[in-house]
Every structure is written in structure tokens, then in C-alpha cells.
């Protein structure tokens, strides 16, 4: 039993870090723009398809596809900001307006993926040698370990960007006080567009990690990831980028350790119970603070 629990904990950290990445990218977008990106899961699935076709057409391994997908999705996000998001962010009620519009975009993207890629679930042809590593009685697939390492590196790089660079500090400053950022000479539009680009770039990378770690992906699973993303950011604190890391790991640990004892459905249910408990005890989330906006 102890070994099973330990296995569940290790799986929880691996899956939790993937969930954290979903939450961090969603949270950066929400924190800076107050836009509820309900289409985030679809962009994650698009990232997975991106890796699939980069492998099929260009022979790129998922790891090598990551920088390419990040740049392509980043540029797509930058452009999409000016086409769609800018109006939403400037509306009187950006949260509600964006929730509706992005939900529509989510349906459109899901339908387009279904048309383009068909309904069959796909998986990446990606294995490592050896396929498993044994730590005592704990068995770990090497792809999961690699995914864990990539998630740690990406999260670390994002934390470095947000906390150690001037553009990252400016981005956090927007989350703290959106009205004041223009006073210091920051081009709010440009930085907002970069933020949306960063969020979608991270969604693309997360899609590749998802396709490496989970058995398959299809056009139908986007909204599942969006839902997980929102659970994670509510747990960690709305608008708090690094809070989402704690939220993701917590949710992953709860879900994966529960799977040791219960069925997958019950384990998911326990994740939601955890969410409700956090909302009841600490409504702003683990790291949430009152926003000055």
C-alpha cells in the first residue's frame, strides 16, 4: 500500500506540474488582461496536434518542436490580441464579455479541429530507451520524467522572467495596478499583446507535454483542460502566476493519490471537493490577494 501511495504521489507531482503550466498560462492572461480565456484548452490541444504534425511532416521530435510551437503560438497570440482580445480587455466588463466570446471561440476551434483532424484520438510516436526507470518498487515511465524535467525548466524560466526581468516586473505591475502602468511609459497595448502571446505560447508547449505524458489526445478534450486550468487558478489564487504552480501540484497530488484508492471518476470528484474546500476556507485561493484594479 505504501509503495502504491508513493507511486501516486510521484504521479501527482508529474501531472500536477503539467496542470500548473495550464494554470500559469491561463492566470497570466487573466491577471494582465482580465480576459477569461475559455478557449485555452483548445489551444493546448492545438499544441499537441502541432507536435504530432511537426513529427509526421518535419521529423521533429516533440522536444525540438517545443521552441517552434512556442514561437508560432506566441505570434498567433500577439496577432489575436489585436483582432479580438483588445476589445474584450477594454470593455466595461472584460470578465463576462470574454467568457462568452472565448467560449464561442472554444466551440469554433473544437469544430475546426474535428473537421481538420477528424474525431480519432491520436498519440505521439515518442518513446525513450529505457522506457521505464525503477526507483525501489516505484516504476516511472521515462517520458513522464522527461515531461517533469521540461515542466520544471519552463516554470523556472517563466518565474525568472516574471520576477527577475524588467518586462516581467512590468507584467506583474499590470496585474497589481493596470491604470498606473502607463504612467511609467509602458505601452500597455504592446505589453498586453505580448502577454497574450506568452500565454498561448505556453499553452502550445503544455499541449506537447500533454501529448507526451497522457496516452492520447483528440479535438474533444480541450474543455477538460480549460476546466482543469480554472480549478488550478482558483486553488492558487486568481491572477497570481506562481500561485497556479501550487494549485496545480495540489490538484495533481489530490487526483493521483486518490486514484490509488478509488476509481478515476471518484478521484476527479475528490479534486473538486478539494476545490470547494479551498473556496469555502480561503475564497481568494492559496496565494490570492485583493486586487487594486
Amino acid at each position, binding site marked *: 500500500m505504501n509503495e502504491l501511495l508513493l507511486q501516486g504521489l510521484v504521479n501527482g507531482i508529474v501531472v500536477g506540474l503539467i496542470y500548473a503550466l495550464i494554470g500559469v498560462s491561463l492566470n497570466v492572461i487573466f491577471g494582465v488582461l482580465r480576459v477569461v480565456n475559455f478557449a485555452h484548452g483548445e489551444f493546448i490541444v492545438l499544441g499537441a496536434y502541432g507536435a504530432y504534425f511537426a513529427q509526421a511532416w518535419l521529423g521533429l521530435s516533440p522536444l525540438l518542436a517545443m521552441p517552434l510551437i512556442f514561437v508560432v503560438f506566441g505570434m498567433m497570440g500577439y496577432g489575436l490580441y489585436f483582432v479580438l482580445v483588445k476589445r474584450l480587455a477594454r470593455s466595461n466588463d472584460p470578465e463576462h464579455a470574454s467568457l462568452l466570446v472565448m467560449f464561442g471561440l472554444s466551440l469554433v476551434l473544437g469544430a475546426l479541429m474535428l473537421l481538420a483532424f477528424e474525431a480519432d484520438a491520436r498519440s505521439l510516436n515518442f518513446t525513450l530507451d529505457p522506457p521505464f526507470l525503477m526507483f525501489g518498487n516505484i516504476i516511472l515511465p521515462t517520458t513522464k520524467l522527461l515531461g517533469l524535467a521540461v515542466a520544471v525548466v519552463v516554470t523556472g524560466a517563466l518565474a525568472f522572467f516574471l520576477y527577475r526581468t*524588467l518586462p516581467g516586473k512590468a507584467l506583474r*505591475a499590470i496585474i*497589481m*495596478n493596470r491604470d498606473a502602468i*502607463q*504612467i511609467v511609459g509602458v505601452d500597455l497595448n504592446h505589453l498586453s499583446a505580448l502577454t497574450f502571446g506568452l500565454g498561448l505560447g505556453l499553452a502550445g508547449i503544455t499541449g506537447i507535454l500533454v501529448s507526451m505524458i497522457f496516452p492520447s489526445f483528440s479535438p474533444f478534450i480541450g474543455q477538460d483542460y480549460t476546466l482543469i486550468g480554472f480549478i488550478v487558478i482558483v486553488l492558487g489564487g486568481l491572477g497570481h502566476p506562481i500561485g497556479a504552480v501550487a494549485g496545480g501540484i495540489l490538484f495533481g497530488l489530490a487526483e493521483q493519490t486518490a486514484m490509488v484508492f478509488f476509481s478515476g471518476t471518484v478521484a476527479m470528484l475528490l479534486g473538486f471537493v478539494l476545490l470547494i474546500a479551498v473556496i469555502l476556507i480561503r475564497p481568494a485561493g492559496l496565494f490570492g490577494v485583493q486586487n487594486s484594479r
Partner: protein
Amino acid sequence: MHGVELSMENISVAYNGDITVLKEVALRAKPGEVTGIIGPNGAGKSTVLKTIFGLLSTKTGAITMGGRDITNLKAFQRALEGVSFVPQNRSAFAGLSVYDNLLLGCWPFRKDKARIERAIDGIFERFPILKEKRSTLAGSMSGGQQRFLEIARALVTEPKVILLDEPTAMIAPKISKDIYALTRDLADQGATIILVDQNVRQCATISDRLYILELGRNKAEGTREDFATDGQLKEMVAEWMNYKIDV
């Protein structure tokens, strides 16, 4: 400080396109002077500053700075041109340290590390309390200290024009006195300062030129001496603001 002349001519501003809040307002602020704007609540004083900084767009008129038309520049572009704004509401970034707040103030020359270092050292020399608290989160400081940080951040770029909107609102009297002394000192060093203040006594005391606004229009203007000697102007201020300006 190397201030430049800033002028507004015939400026009209409307919210949502049809609620006119400024009507053909004109103003001229000179280097080395504090230009005070006073008037009753709702006169449009803060709106004038927001318009000069580019946070509100104009329906008519022109704003020039050092002879250059800046009417169509966006707020961040005006900041890059050398306009600094300290708004009435809290504008320090509460979750960032004092140092990081000042660092963000250096955004217009963010690629010049040597200049950033020089600028922040200069600020620490002028505001020793900020040096002491350089690693403290801005949000954990007192209201007065946060106000000094906001003013310091506005000065870090060595701006040509400084806009101060009610800098002493909700601030303890002792710190308010220091803020007025600093304002006067900056003007004496050559800065162009436009000050909006509800405190008519203090505003009139440190301003070289005063503008009175009423319902979004220019009501009266003149030097401090004009307001102290011209019976009509003196009466106007005494009647509206319950204060008599003396030389």
C-alpha cells in the same frame, strides 16, 4: 531639471463622446515655475492633467511641449517625451519593492543600465528614506512614504514637465509640508510643474501662476501677485475658496 514650456490651447474633452468635461480650456506652464490649478469640485482640474498626460483624448485644441505638438501622442509616448504624472489615486505597485518601483520608472531608458544606476542613485540621494527601504514592498509602507515613492518614480526620468494631482490628499500634515517644499524646490531647479490641489492656501503659496477652473472652463488666471493685488481676483478666490491670497 530642464523644464520646457507646456501650453494647452482651446482644449475640449468629452467622456463617452458627448459628456463634455473640458470646454476650450487654455493653460501655459513655464519652466522654473509652479503652475497651480484650483477650483471647486467637478471643475475639471484632474481632467486637465489627465488630458495633458494623454489618458483622455481631446475633441478640439492642441497641446504643445517645448513648441512641439504632442496632442496626438499616446500616454506612454508622452512619458517618453518627458512628461511625468503623479495621479491622485495610489499608483505605487504594492507588490513590488521600492527599488523595483523605481526601476519601472526607468522604463523609457530601460536598455541603458548605467543611466538606470545613476538615476536611482540620484533618487536615493534625494530621498534617503527610500534608500533605507529599497527592498521593502511598496504596499507595506505608510501612505506618505508611498506618495514620496510615487513622486520619486516620476522624477527618476528627469522629466521636462511634472504633473501633480492632489499630491497631499490623505497625507499627514508634516509630510504634506515636505511635499510642498519639494515641489517648490523642483521648480526652483528649473522644472515645469503643474499642480492641482484642493488646498488653495498651500497651492496659492507655492504657485507662481494660478488658473481657476469652473465647470470645465477657464474662469480666471494670473500670477500669484495678480491674485494678491487685483481686487476682483482676490474677491473671487475669497468667495469660492474661502481664502484670501496675500503676497
